[in-house]
């Protein structure tokens, strides 16, 4: 008799969420009436039935060891019946039916260095990418800058003292696997020099037509180098997006002296009040300065502080800037306006000032 191999399980999809729902959530699913915010990092949702579920939200570094996840599991067992979830901004949330457990849970989270906050008009966790921890195309690290910036802004996470919510995101290259292009403040890793071409390996590992087609500005053209088929880059046409490197490893972009960060402001995804909008360039370049990137931290803290001081209640960063105008934004923040701030890509003219509405 031959032993049949066990059937290989595939295409089962994710587990059904229902089995992970707190009984109070299951019972009141779709029947929530309103919510209150008893304290920073704590929410209370009240159902039509009168039932209440309390949420305690804590920040995480996103990069979590199984040891910390097990700690969260133990805390959930102790305080929230074993029920917890994560947010779209990498916070962990414990779902409690007993309000008496809120304070002891907060205390244990804090004792383990997980700050409680991130609700309402605070700075929530920074959405970010892999950086040097795990990515091949990064122009900078992600986790290190996030750690340094959040260290400086932790009080803004644990308090709700801003005019409106403030969302920061970081992507370590233009691929933006953490799409940062609609954030109140975006920190974006950038390259500033064209790719170096490794003619020795290029014909062996890349399809040249695909490579040529990958360039959004048509800066790559075929060339014969030392008798071998390869490509050349028209440097003046390169805007350092790195798309060629994504399709062809023989065009590395990494350049320690020239890679660094740019800062963008005023984007949002929510439709509240004003329409969703893109973040716009504030600072074109800050060099990489590990391990704590002090220039980036100072730049972000400065923008946050100027915004906190000048924006009116409920104004998001972009709404505030639109009210006061970009010239005043640059004046108030002390950020230098340069030639790099004026768009010269497609449809650039749309961002030129096309009126005489000026403030003096």
């Amino acid at each position, binding site marked *: 008799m031959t032993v049949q191999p066990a059937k*290989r399980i595939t*295409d*089962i*999809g*994710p*587990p*059904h969420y229902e089995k*992970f729902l707190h009984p109070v*959530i299951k019972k009141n699913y*779709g029947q929530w*009436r*309103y*919510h209150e915010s008893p304290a920073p990092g704590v929410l209370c*949702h009240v159902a039509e039935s009168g039932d209440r579920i309390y949420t305690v939200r804590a*920040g*995480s*570094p996103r*990069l*979590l*060891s*199984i040891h910390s*996840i*097990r700690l969260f*599991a133990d805390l959930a*067992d102790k305080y929230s019946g074993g*029920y*917890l*979830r994560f947010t*779209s901004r*990498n916070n962990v949330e414990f*779902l409690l039916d007993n309000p008496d457990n809120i304070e002891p849970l907060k205390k244990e989270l804090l004792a383990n*260095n997980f*700050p409680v906050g991130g609700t309402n008009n605070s700075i929530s966790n920074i959405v970010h990418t892999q950086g*040097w*921890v*795990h*990515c*091949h*195309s990064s122009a900078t690290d992600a986790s290190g800058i996030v*750690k340094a910036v959040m*260290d400086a802004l932790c009080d803004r*996470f644990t308090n709700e003292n801003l005019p409106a919510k403030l969302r920061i995101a970081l992507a370590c290259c*233009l691929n*933006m696997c953490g799409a940062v292009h609609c954030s109140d403040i975006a920190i974006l890793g950038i390259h500033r020099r064209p790719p170096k071409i490794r003619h020795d390996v290029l014909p062996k590992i890349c399809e040249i037509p695909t490579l040529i*087609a*990958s360039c959004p500005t048509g800066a790559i053209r075929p060339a014969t180098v030392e008798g071998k088929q390869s490509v050349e880059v028209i440097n003046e046409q390169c805007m350092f*997006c790195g*798309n060629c490197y*994504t399709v062809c490893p023989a065009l590395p972009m990494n350049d*320690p*002296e020239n*890679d660094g960060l740019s800062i963008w402001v005023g984007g949002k995804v*929510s*439709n*509240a*009040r004003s329409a969703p909008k*893109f973040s716009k360039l504030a600072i074109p370049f800050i060099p990489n300065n*590990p391990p*704590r990137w002090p220039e980036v931290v100072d730049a972000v803290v400065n923008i946050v502080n100027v915004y906190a001081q000048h924006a009116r*209640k409920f104004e998001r960063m972009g709404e505030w800037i639109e009210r006061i105008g970009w010239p005043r934004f640059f004046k108030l923040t002390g950020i230098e306006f340069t030639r790099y701030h004026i768009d010269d890509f497609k449809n650039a003219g749309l961002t030129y000032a096309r009126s005489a509405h000026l403030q003096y």
Partner: protein
Amino acid sequence: MADNGKPKTDQLDQLESGPWPSFVTEIKKAAETNPVCNDLLGQLELSYEEKKGHWKHGGIVGVLGYGGGVIGRYSDVPEQFPQVAHFHTIRINHPSGWFYTSDALRTLCDIWERHGSGLTNMHGSTGDIIFLGTRTEELEPVFKELTENGFDLGGSGSCMRTPSCCVGQARCEWANYDTMAMCNQITHDYQDELHRPPFPYKFKVKFAGCPNDCVASIARADLSVIGTWKDNIQQDAAAVAEYAAGGLDIQKDVCDRCPGKCMDWDGSNLVIRNGECVHCMHCINVMPKALRPGKEKGAVLLLGSKAPIVQGALLSSVLVPFVPAEELLDTLKELIGRVWEFWDEHGKNRERVGELIQRVGMASFLDAIGLDPVPEMVSAPRDNPYIFFQAEDTK
């Protein structure tokens, strides 16, 4: 394999102080039980010294029968850090709303302790649970254990990426449709497209229950499904008065901030002209006890958002202004089918749906998917006279 032991990490050590939780501490914790993480620390310290990454361009690795879900990752200094010579990422499709029980998390941790570095992201940008760092030969065993425990891989490459959604009706009074059910259903209905990349490039779907858009669908999903309502905002006059009595300046903080200017406050009564409401959520956000979305619930479907690569960033734009909640699943599947068919045929390599629409024109796209143009699709009609009149519209 050579064991380098605990590396010297002068730079990374500086990221362990301060009030925010430290990823370096997390890696060090993992290193206590798995020496692989020592080499990760060593290589990362080298990156901090040299200001450059040390991971090679991906490689094709995966599990049998799937074309995605695993991102190949190799060190470019494997002689120096042999334990991270292979350090592949595994994406695991998270449950809708990122809800877990402690037992489910422990199961995942145990699997990852047996087969990988013990490092994760909770969660990745698209929403997946990320297992960070393992060797090629561990991929099948980890996949086997995951599926035996009810988990499956997420998407990568030119596929339907793992859909995600906001917390929705599980814990939010503003969800205008069941985001978690919809996300779960669509994920299960397109398992083949998720695991076996069939498209010119990635396709993301995100489900937000209201226009606050807590999953950033309008910026980050090719198909953005945003809950909204058609009838009147539900209003509790007594609760409005309570907010006013509690010190909320309803004129200044609510009425004056309304983009539709559809609210009047005379000091005791709030009048909403619902026909002029643009459904932005501001008043409801400010007075959650007093105001709620209406009862005729559904969603607006928007298409095309993406990050900059290749032709520039896009926000999704309106395709279907309103779909009643009860018709949402069928409408979505019909629409997804038609969009994919057109994209399959006309999309270029690495061209997202939004970029394809920019290239061929929205009108041609609408013709192809069989949708009539409506004014809700534009912020304004065209302001240039270069109209591609069609021959059949002329004599």
